[in-house]
């Protein structure tokens, strides 16, 4: 029989379809992972193509190498053809009952390494740590200089996950409003804080550690687990054990262990389900200067984490209509396969 599970924070229900439970082999695409379609010709993110991108806003590069030239290890550039353009946060306009505003925002691309074929999980942990540090630096700069309310960091890997280019990269999009899904998480965490008298994410982490069946990997600073109400097969959450609302609060000595656990779980995912497409999304509290004003004590209630969602099933009519998801792999089963890999 299937089981309905409720996600604690969002209140979203998921159908765990245990009677049609699948094994990792059921999701393996036939043949090898699809090759990079653009590899034979040209890639704007490869070393040597720097003139084809807008001028870099930040780069880790060899001493003495000028900006926008080869010699970098991590490079951040603005989107060349952005949907949102930087500028002061715009006022809202009304058209009858409808609201709108100018399309202001920041859209940057973090090119994670110069090598076209080397995915994030394939990089040495030290290089992943550098990428994470660059995320922190850009979040701080965007929040401080441009006053955007929310900075979203995400990675689309593979065409089915929305990547138009296979060269490993992440994206940073900052918006002048706090997105609805982020607000839902804040409201859920706020409500639970009053019930539990503590951060609900810290509580989840404690329960997961006690149960153990959904744990995928851990180290003294971080835990990776399959969420109790996972929407998707082999879905993973990577969460810090030390309570912290903002990703920018991750200390220098914590970046290494974070890089190590990310490398670990991405490698496990690659081995278990044959290098699937995935989305990796950072969840964190809005711009600290704004959240302190609009959501008092949010720093106590919100808890940053990464969500990794392999794209192995399709979101279709039922999910769009109801907000329910059907997951054919119980998270305990998925976690067990990932642990064993």
């Amino acid at each position, binding site marked *: 029989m299937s089981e309905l599970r409720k996600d604690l924070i969002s209140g979203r229900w998921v159908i765990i379809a245990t009677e049609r439970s699948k094994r990792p082999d059921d999701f393996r695409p036939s043949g090898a992972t699809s090759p990079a379609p653009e590899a034979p010709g*040209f890639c704007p993110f490869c070393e040597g193509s720097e003139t084809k991108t807008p001028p870099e806003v930040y780069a880790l590069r060899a001493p003495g190498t000028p900006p926008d030239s080869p010699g970098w290890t991590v490079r951040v550039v603005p989107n*060349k*053809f*952005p*949907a949102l353009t930087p500028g002061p946060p715009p006022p809202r306009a009304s058209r009858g009952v409808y609201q709108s505003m100018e399309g202001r925002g920041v859209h940057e691309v973090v090119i994670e390494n110069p090598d076209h074929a080397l995915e994030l999980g394939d990089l040495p942990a030290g290089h992943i740590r550098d990428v994470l540090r660059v995320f922190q630096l850009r979040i701080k700069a965007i929040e401080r200089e441009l006053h955007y309310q929310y900075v979203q960091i995400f990675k689309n890997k593979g065409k089915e996950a929305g990547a*138009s*280019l296979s060269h490993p990269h992440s994206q940073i999009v900052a918006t002048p409003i706090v997105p609805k899904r982020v607000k839902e998480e804040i409201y859920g965490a706020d409500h639970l804080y009053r019930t539990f008298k503590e951060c609900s994410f810290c509580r989840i982490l404690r329960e997961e550690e006690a149960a153990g069946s959904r744990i995928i990997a851990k180290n003294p600073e971080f835990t990776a687990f399959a969420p109790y109400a996972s929407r998707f097969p082999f879905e993973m959450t990577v969460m810090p054990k030390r309570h912290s609302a903002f990703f920018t609060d991750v200390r220098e000595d914590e970046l290494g262990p974070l890089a190590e656990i990310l490398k670990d779980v991405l490698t496990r995912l690659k081995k278990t389900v044959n290098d699937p497409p995935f989305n990796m999304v950072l969840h964190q509290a809005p711009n600290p200067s704004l959240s302190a004003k609009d959501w008092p004590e949010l720093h106590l209630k919100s808890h940053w984490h990464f969500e990794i969602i392999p794209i192995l099933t399709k979101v279709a009519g039922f999910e769009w209509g109801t907000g329910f998801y059907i997951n054919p792999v119980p998270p305990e089963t998925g976690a067990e396969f990932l642990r064993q890999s």
Partner: protein
Amino acid sequence: MKKKILVVEDEKTLCLLYEEELSREGYDITAVTDAEAALARLAQESFDLIVTDIRMPGKNGIELITQIMGLRKDIPIIINSAYQSYKEDFMTWAADAYVVKSSSLDELKSKIKQLLGD
């Protein structure tokens, strides 16, 4: 000497319009209706700038500019598409500008002048 522009556009009426309007600006225009014809012309002669549509029969404009980048990277390229949505494809970064088609060619002409340093 007139600067040479290669226009790749599958709609013949638009080809004629571009030829007429851009010639009036003082450019030498060669218009072709598909990517293969564009690659053939590029193999025969050199151009100062390329303007290409994306949605075309056969090889699309993104495949065309990717192939051109594999041959030579120094020709300025303008994508001229009716669709904004292709901006989400990072391979469009091979182009130097992205101009959405409109009834006026002012933006296209302005980008051409800017890229050719006129």
